[in-house]
């Protein structure tokens, strides 16, 4: 048997090498940042403008539908948009439809709402400062309800009923002044969806958004961007922040760089690795084909 052609050896190339390279591509830039500039894409800008256009003290419904696996992509946006909303003194109502979310949401609320994200004089931030919000006064956490699309429909028709008239901590909603007049999603000035998948932004658009013409902006994982982009085109979503890159853009617009901006660097290297993998794969393929054409055994 003749010595096999290099392309044939590469055909059986162990993909674990690719894993290794990708691993390095992810870790190394975290220690040696490139700080490439980020450019908010139009849909992210639209989302920012929608929030920016809110009146002072607007009432905003925030649905946090994610699990730990999606936090790297969505948490940067969440932190940026909450800062954005808080410095517009928006009154916030939180809820989630993911069973895996409540512990996360509680942590988020403790870290970003109960205390100020950018108190006056926060370094690396020259925008308007925000303040610590008081639960059941400036914001309400309704908690978690299961039922996928069905429960989202319920939010649209009777939000209080869907949560049995109580906030997550058991306070009757009737006793919370800021909840007065908030009975269904249509009563809010804006609906913000931090949405890692299903149920999430898509269900909100399908089951309540379209019917009630709700003003909604969404943040989704980079995967779902393609899925939700048409809804932005058709105005069913007023803005869409796609994945970490989108979040980096939003962070830039809000003026407080965070994990999204830092991660953007890694995205660069990682993307290049994938592109090189594709190119390499084709080189191997064409070399092998040319070799076979020349009558080489295979």
């Amino acid at each position: 048997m003749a010595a096999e052609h290099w392309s044939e050896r590469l055909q059986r190339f162990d993909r674990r090498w690719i894993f290794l390279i990708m691993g390095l591509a992810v870790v190394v830039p975290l220690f040696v940042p490139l700080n490439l500039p980020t450019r908010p894409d139009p849909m992210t800008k639209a989302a920012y403008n929608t929030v920016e256009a809110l009146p002072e003290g607007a009432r905003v419904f925030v649905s946090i539908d994610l699990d730990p696996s999606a936090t790297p992509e969505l948490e940067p946006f969440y932190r940026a948009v909450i800062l954005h909303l808080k410095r517009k003194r928006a009154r916030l109502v939180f809820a989630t439809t993911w069973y895996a979310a409540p512990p996360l949401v509680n942590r988020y609320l403790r870290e970003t709402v109960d205390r100020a994200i950018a108190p006056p004089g926060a370094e690396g931030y020259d925008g308007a400062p925000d303040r610590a919000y008081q639960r059941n006064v400036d914001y309400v956490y309704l908690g978690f309800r299961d039922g996928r699309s069905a429960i989202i429909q319920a939010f649209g028709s009777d939000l209080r009923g869907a949560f049995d008239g109580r906030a997550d901590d058991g306070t009757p909603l009737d006793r919370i002044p800021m909840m007065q007049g908030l009975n269904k999603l249509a009563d809010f000035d804006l609906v913000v969806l931090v949405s890692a998948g299903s149920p999430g932004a898509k269900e909100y658009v399908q089951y309540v958004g379209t019917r009630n013409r709700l003003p909604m902006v969404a943040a989704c994982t980079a995967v779902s961007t393609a899925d939700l982009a048409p809804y932005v085109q058709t105005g069913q979503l007023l803005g869409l922040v796609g994945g970490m890159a989108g979040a980096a853009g939003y962070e830039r617009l809000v003026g407080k760089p965070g994990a999204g901006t830092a991660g953007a660097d890694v995205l660069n290297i990682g993307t290049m690795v994938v592109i090189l993998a594709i190119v390499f794969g084709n080189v191997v393929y064409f070399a092998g084909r040319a070799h076979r054409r020349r009558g080489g055994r295979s």
Partner: protein
Amino acid sequence: MKKTVPLILGMVFGAYALAEFYLPHHAVAGLSDELRSWAAILSAAAFILGGLNILQVTWPKIRRREDDWGYKVVLLGGAAVMLAVGLPWHKLGDPPRAPTVARTAGGAGPGATVIVTVPDDVTYTVGTVVGPGTGAPIAIAVEPGPVAIKLSKRLAGYRPLTTTVDVAAGDTVTVGGEPPILWGRDGRVFTWIYDHVFGPANATMFSLLAFFVASAAFRAFRARSIEAALLLTAAIIMLIGRAPFGGAISSVFPDLAQWLLDVPQNGGRRAIMMGAAIGAIATGLRVIVGIERSHLGSE
């Protein structure tokens, strides 16, 4: 009885579900909600069957000491622990809900004072004043009248102690206590396992995809045909356009990527969505009228 009744049931409920969307009346809406909760209840109750199924599959392996039986023990153990700490047994006992409040009336002056003594991992809220405990007494001046007091732990899983004290001018109120540990799904142990086992495992399984997309791209994106060539060209354009460096090099790449999303991608997806919707509607109707009935058995 065994076959016809389910068939009729299906037709009736299916027909209702078809109709309710076009009938705005609130009575209809109410009934639909009720039926939805039926489905939710069934789905939830099925988890008991699911649990039984898991036992049915794993227990024999453990008994017969088959390969990997030890892992099955871990599996059952994990589930058992979560159930033990998660299900609301804790409702049996009832730890305190309010802090201890001692009140000494009288004294001079228009204002009143609240003295908080809590350990350093407890955060106190007195009226609008919030702060960490130190273990030593902390005096806080308050306006006379009802004052909301709350003691909470910094970590999740403890029940905050709350109360409202009606203080009169000159009063001194001494507040103490430590939030009790909570059990159940908001409890200390449950959240601990969630944060340190569930969370990392979940996120890391997901992150494996970062490596798999690379290997899948290496293997599958080869220009064997026009279709494959289009596939990989579009992928590369999108990669460059969406990655931050694409925008840094030239705004052409993001724009091109966006155009790719808005026009060809969008056209294709619209067709898929329409086709899928048509297929789904046809399938749904088929199931309702009972042309498809493999879930209804026959003997």
